């Protein structure tokens, strides 16, 4: 059975400039043990998608559509029911390990909290579990660190604590929202390796959210590229990266410096012209129209159709053929 089925998810935020559709008609499915990456720049709706699944949207926002976890629509769940899901069946790791831990509680207490809540374990059992988790996420001297406060740990260690916390109740799904963005590159790799290995060992599904194409490429089976709240391209990670087909995905890739000795690496680094449009006044039709090299009048009135170009590889673009041809010839 499909673990997570998101269908036609739309997240609307009430802003001073009127309602803004920050996520538009997003659909995807996730099987048990499958890993999915969501990539896109700031404000593309990737974090709001995660928060919508968790039922933790900001007060001025709401979600429409369905988010089914093992067949049950979470969007119809009451707050009490959602509290049973969060931290228990879905674990989440956030971006900022510096501010995502309570500075006044020991890390041991913070890791134990979810288990005490969902598993009803007593203090001694929780302690044993916390020590096991700290060891599992690679924190040295767990018996000493269990009583540490967050400020006594490094950024990488704090993120390990966050991971231990998210995994403490053995969730079916882990959502990692930019888990390494705030860390140094060397630590980033350690944390991503840790997450990937734990996911494999524990058989969990994962949604990894990142703006970093490299992070996505190396760590997930499937990928969704989002722009302006909408999915523009999706498919198996290797297929998508081998055949980038949406002008936005291509632009995103072109903006990453390449360090190898091929023709592509000696070209000038390209950027995508323009800036991300304001969510409150997104254009009708394709959200990327104002920044796209291939734009024609046909792109403006209606959202582009989703074209399947290979098994599971979908692109939402009217000019996908032209874009692919150009990309192959570059």
């Amino acid at each position, binding site marked *: 059975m499909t673990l997570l089925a998101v269908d036609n998810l739309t997240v609307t935020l009430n802003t001073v400039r009127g309602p803004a559709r920050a996520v538009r008609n997003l659909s995807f499915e996730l099987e048990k043990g499958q890993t999915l990456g969501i990539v896109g720049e700031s404000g593309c709706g990737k974090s709001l998608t995660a928060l919508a699944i968790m039922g933790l949207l900001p007060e001025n926002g709401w979600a429409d559509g369905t988010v089914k976890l093992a067949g049950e629509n979470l969007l119809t769940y009451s*707050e009490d029911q959602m509290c049973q*899901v969060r*931290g228990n069946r879905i*674990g*989440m790791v*956030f971006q900022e390990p510096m501010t995502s831990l*309570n500075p*006044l509680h020991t890390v041991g207490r913070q890791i134990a*909290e979810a288990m005490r*809540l969902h598993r009803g374990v007593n203090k001694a059992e929780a302690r044993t579990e916390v020590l096991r988790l700290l060891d599992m996420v690679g924190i040295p001297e767990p018996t000493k660190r269990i009583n540490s406060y967050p400020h006594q740990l490094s950024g990488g260690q704090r993120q390990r604590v966050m991971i231990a916390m998210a995994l403490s109740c053995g969730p079916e799904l882990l959502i990692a929202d930019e888990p390494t963005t705030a860390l140094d590159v060397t630590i980033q790799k350690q944390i991503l390796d840790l997450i990937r290995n734990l996911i494999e060992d524990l058989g969990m599904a994962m949604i990894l959210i990142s703006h970093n194409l490299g992070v996505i490429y190396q760590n997930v089976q499937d990928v969704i590229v989002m722009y302006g709240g909408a999915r523009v391209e999706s498919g198996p990670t290797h297929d998508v990266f081998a055949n980038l087909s949406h002008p936005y995905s291509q632009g995103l890739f072109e903006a990453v410096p390449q360090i190898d000795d091929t023709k592509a690496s000696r070209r000038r680094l390209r950027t995508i012209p323009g800036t991300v449009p304001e969510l409150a006044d997104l254009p009708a039709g394709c959200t990327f129209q104002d920044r796209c090299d291939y734009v024609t009048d046909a792109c403006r009135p209606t959202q582009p159709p989703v074209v399947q170009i290979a098994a599971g590889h979908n692109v939402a673009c009217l000019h996908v053929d032209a874009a692919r041809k150009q990309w192959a010839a570059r």
Partner: protein
Amino acid sequence: MSVFLAKRFVTFIATLLGATVLTFLALEILPGDPASVILGIDAPQSAVDALRDRLGLDRPILERYFDWLEDIVTLRFGVSYTYSTPVLELVRARLAITFPLAILAMLLSAFVAFGLGVFAASRHNRPGDVTVMGISQLGISVPNFWLALLLILLFAVQLRWFSSGGFPGWHNGVWPAFKALILPAIALATVQGAILARFTRSAVLETMREDYVRTARAKGLSRRATLWRHVLRNAMIPVITIMGLQFANLLAGTIVVEEVFAMPGLGRLILQAISNRDVIVVRDVVLMLAAFVVFINFVVDVLYAVIDPRLKPHDV
């Protein structure tokens, strides 16, 4: 003892020293010669001069200041001109009223403010929040002496639940004495509590936006559990700061409120001492109050270290 506490202790002493200078200077520039005030305007000049000599008023200012400092350090407080009683003895009797009054007012304001502030924050922008904020705005706007008069009119004159003033003393039983403190404490606590309630609300609201609060919610904690376990203790840090600062206002407020309720407390003692130019009483009592306020702020600093592990140097 940690470096943190040692630093705070040095600040404590320095602040007190500053307070002695200010107090002494303020009394120096106060118009009116104590000797002529004590003896009255008809006193012969020779008598005034003799008294000035006895009080040491004709000696140089620095000499008098350091004499006073020496007296304080060795805990030899002066003797009042007007009462001919040692200051310490005067203070001890008054403190039995003012100290419980200040504590009662502080507790009252803290309880009401925490309750209302947290209630309002948890109902942000909803009717409960708006109502509480409206009431607190009213509380802030009412001067305490006027509120004291209103309380007397309603509870003492109309309803006759309390007496309109005076203090029976603790020797006549705890309840009557406590009862006499209730109305003045309410008058004092209202403004403080209203300000503190607003502060508590905004501190709680601000803390609720922190990332770790979202983490707590992502663990499956309910809103209420998150508020109690993760928000309140973090929000207390700024609230305690304000409480410490408010304590000085509270003591100043006792001066006015004790006058309205005709309570022979420390505030009233100062007021009378000032009008009698009883310099020795004024400066010693003001310094004691200053020491008390600084001490309370020292306690607040120590409380920070208790609440916030980041302020505890571990291996020093």
